[in-house]
């Protein structure tokens, strides 16, 4: 080797070091900045108290794992045991153990000082690189749009668990139409009418403002499955997608920028369509006093994107005259929450601000109470409406309450207990009930497997 000329690699290194020594002050600053950063953040990490929960991300954060000699020894023993296992035993164990190192990594990421600021830096860097998305959330015209809302798993022919795909979602839509059809037929015999209204997701109503190359055909396929299935079955539907899409195209603030729900204005427009179909006159928009409930609402889509380039959302309550004369009653097990009006304002102080609509005091599923009753004080014999819904209905319910007493059922949390001992059919055959409204948004409708409880 000695007869060979100096390798290229070595020449490169020499050059680097020669150059490095030419800028003394710059070098001192570089070294100092690095050391200060490493030590300061290390110390800060252990000094700053840990958080249990992140309101911004709407999830629990990893806590400090057990660090002890005992754990080390028991991990070591387990390691040794695994080495001597047979091939099949090892395969079965694969990825099952949460290793100490993984736990520490997760803990460091979750409890990192200024975690939210860090997430924002990442998000804006992604935008700077022209990717158009941050953590899978499309950011366009100031809207945060979650394009991929299929959740859950399914089993393939071989029994392997896999993520659900578009076909599964379409099957689910068809299945749900079947349940609704069955319910309509059953209730039709006793003269109760069933109406279905399906709200668009943000990605649906923003179809026309999405990036020009964004492939919307998948989303169109969901809607085609719904409209075709519904018309084939002959169920009553109310179109609340296209009117809201038009309002979006007009630049109106009908869907939150940072959350997957519609705004109260969006809910109002949907209410107009629905109440017309039910044969009533909607309240005119200027009959409401618009009360700004919060101006710093950061919702569920922001929880994923980490950035909200056009700022936080505003939650508005559409107050109408005497709306404090309504009573909202929410029984969950032994704990009954009851208040005048429709708003549980304690949630406005939390991160989970949308739960101010119909929220129970302690029930923590984002205001998705199994059973909610809304009545008008001193008016015992009003017509009743059974509302089967997901969370899109929470901000719409106050409008409907003006016309009907409401029995609001959430099938996803509909587990019989002391307060809930009736089936949907039984509720629908109560006195003064002549209509059932099913109000979902497409995301729940294509994923949810609990709507079948309506025929239970």
């Amino acid at each position: 080797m000695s007869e060979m000329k100096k390798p290229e690699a070595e020449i490169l290194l020499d050059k680097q070091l020669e150059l490095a020594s030419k800028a003394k002050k710059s070098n001192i600053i570089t070294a100092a900045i690095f050391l200060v950063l490493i030590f300061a953040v290390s110390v800060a990490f252990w000094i700053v108290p840990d958080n249990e929960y992140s309101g911004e991300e709407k999830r629990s954060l990893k806590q400090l794992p057990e660090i002890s000699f005992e754990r080390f020894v028991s991990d070591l023993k387990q390691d040794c045991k695994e080495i001597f296992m047979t091939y099949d035993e090892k395969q079965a164990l694969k990825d099952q153990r949460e290793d100490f190192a993984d736990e520490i990594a997760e803990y460091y990421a979750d409890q990192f000082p200024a975690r939210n600021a860090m997430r924002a830096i990442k998000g804006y860097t992604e935008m700077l690189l022209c990717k158009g998305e941050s953590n899978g959330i499309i950011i366009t015209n100031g809207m945060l749009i979650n394009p991929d809302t299929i959740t859950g798993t399914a089993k393939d022919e071989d029994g392997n668990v896999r993520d659900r795909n578009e076909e599964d979602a379409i099957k689910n839509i068809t299945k749900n139409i079947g349940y609704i059809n069955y319910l309509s037929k059953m209730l039709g015999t006793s003269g109760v009418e069933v109406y279905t209204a399906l709200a668009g997701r943000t990605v649906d109503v923003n179809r026309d403002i999405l990036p020009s190359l964004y492939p919307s055909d998948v989303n169109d396929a969901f809607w085609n499955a719904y409209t075709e299935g519904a018309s084939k079955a002959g169920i009553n539907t109310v179109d609340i997608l296209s009117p809201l899409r038009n309002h979006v195209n007009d630049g109106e603030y009908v869907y939150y920028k940072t959350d997957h729900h519609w705004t109260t204005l969006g809910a109002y427009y949907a209410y107009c369509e629905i109440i017309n179909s039910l044969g009533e006159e909607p309240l005119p928009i200027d009959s409401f006093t618009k009360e700004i409930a919060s101006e710093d609402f950061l919702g569920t889509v922001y929880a994923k994107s980490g950035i909200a380039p056009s700022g936080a959302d505003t939650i508005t309550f559409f107050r109408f005259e005497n709306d404090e004369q309504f009573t909202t009653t929410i029984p969950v097990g032994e704990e009954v929450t009851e208040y005048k009006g429709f708003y549980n304002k304690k949630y406005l102080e939390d991160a989970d601000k949308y739960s101010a609509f119909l929220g129970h005091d302690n029930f923590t599923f984002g205001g998705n109470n199994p059973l909610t009753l809304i009545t008008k004080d001193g008016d015992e014999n009003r017509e009743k409406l059974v509302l089967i819904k997901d969370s899109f209905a929470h901000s719409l319910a106050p409008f409907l309450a003006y016309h009907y007493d409401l029995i609001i059922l959430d099938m996803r949390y509909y587990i019989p207990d002391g307060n809930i001992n009736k089936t949907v059919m039984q509720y629908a055959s109560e006195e003064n009930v002549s209509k059932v409204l099913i109000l979902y948004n497409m995301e729940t409708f294509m994923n949810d497997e609990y709507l079948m409880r309506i025929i239970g």
Partner: protein
Amino acid sequence: MVFSSLEFLFLYLAITLAVYFLVPRKLKNIWLLIISLVFYGWGERVYTALMVFTIIVDYVCGYFVDKYRENRKKAKTVLVISVIINLAILGFFKYYDFIVGSILNLIPGVNIPLLGLKLPIGISFYTFQALSYVIDVYRGDANVQKKITSFGAYVTLFPQLIAGPIVRYKDVDDQLNERLESVDMFASGVRTFTAGLAKKIVFANAIGEVWYYFRDLPTDERSVLAAWFGIICYSLQLYFDFSAYSDMAIGLGKMLGFRFLENFNYPYISKSITEFWRRWHMSLSTWFRDNVYFPLGGSRKGKFKTYRNLLIVWLLTGIWHGAYWNYILWGVYYGIILMLEKGFLLKLLEKIPSFFRHIYTLLIVIFGWLLFVFEDIGAGFEYAKNMFGVNGSGLLTASDAYEITRNLVFVAILCIACTPLPKKLFYKLYFSEGKLGTVYRYAVPVVALAFLTVSIAYLVDSSFNPFLYFRF
């Protein structure tokens, strides 16, 4: 543990550096040994013992090789023992299941159990390093290391322990006993490390996600352009990931006063495959050249032996990368291409415009990565078919068009970052006279801080941080 993690930066590195610079010189290597064992043991509790065993074996062998310096026969015996033990350990942990699995496939009815042992991380790297010590001592290229702690520090040195570069003992022989840490070295290390960290986290991980998107499409939904774009993304991911690990290793080495050799030299600007392999993973090519190719006679014993030697080296290079058939195929693929280039292709290439030489090289490399990335050769073949419009979904689908266009700017940036342009620009500004140079020199630490911050931000909010070398 890996460098691209928060607990490395804000727990491990902080403690390591603090103690390293506080303890007196004679304790520095001992501290490096201890803390490197912690680095390894963090994720590989049991296999740490295996590494310690390797250290002891090669320390003892090196000692006896040196002792029998005058008696070549005895020295050679010790060398052979060391080679056998090292390769036996490597072979057992890395290739046992592969060999047994292949036997089971070939001869039905035999009953040999598979073991399913986890591969000790970095074993291919540290075994080669430990071996190079005994070989270098045997050849008289390096002095014997009397202190087992210093030798242990060399083998376990955390910067290059798990993903290289493979540091030859003779290159650090003197540095182990005597090295000078300085502010200049440290600052240079910070710059190299920071560049590596950003390359790994902001570039490699992100482009890796794009690759996974196209890789995971069902075969019949992958369009021609998507298939090409996907494999280009993988080529970028592998380069940035691997060279980033080397950069981080070299940078950390410099902080501690070590000078490691560069491992990558802009491989994607090569004009031939021969050149490509002088620029890609240089420490591995060098190791095989010094320890296999040259001892076999290199290119000095006639045409036939030259080609034979090339093929052996490339077969071994393939196997070194992983115990799957695709790696062997990949090695042979390069062996054959390099033979062809040596035979006549290089002369032919010199006659055509360099643009076409680049295209030729990149195409060979891209198809090489196709062999490399799919352990299931059949799946790789299916993917390759998509690249030529077979079984796919046409030239371009709507969803592929969206995924490609939204990553175009990013890919363009990465392509520029593959060339020496950014570094040339850096040097030019850094050493320019007058105000511009001064301003720029002060801007460098700020830019480094910005890169660090962005990298940390990506680490804090990451669900995707793969370690690609667990097969090596």
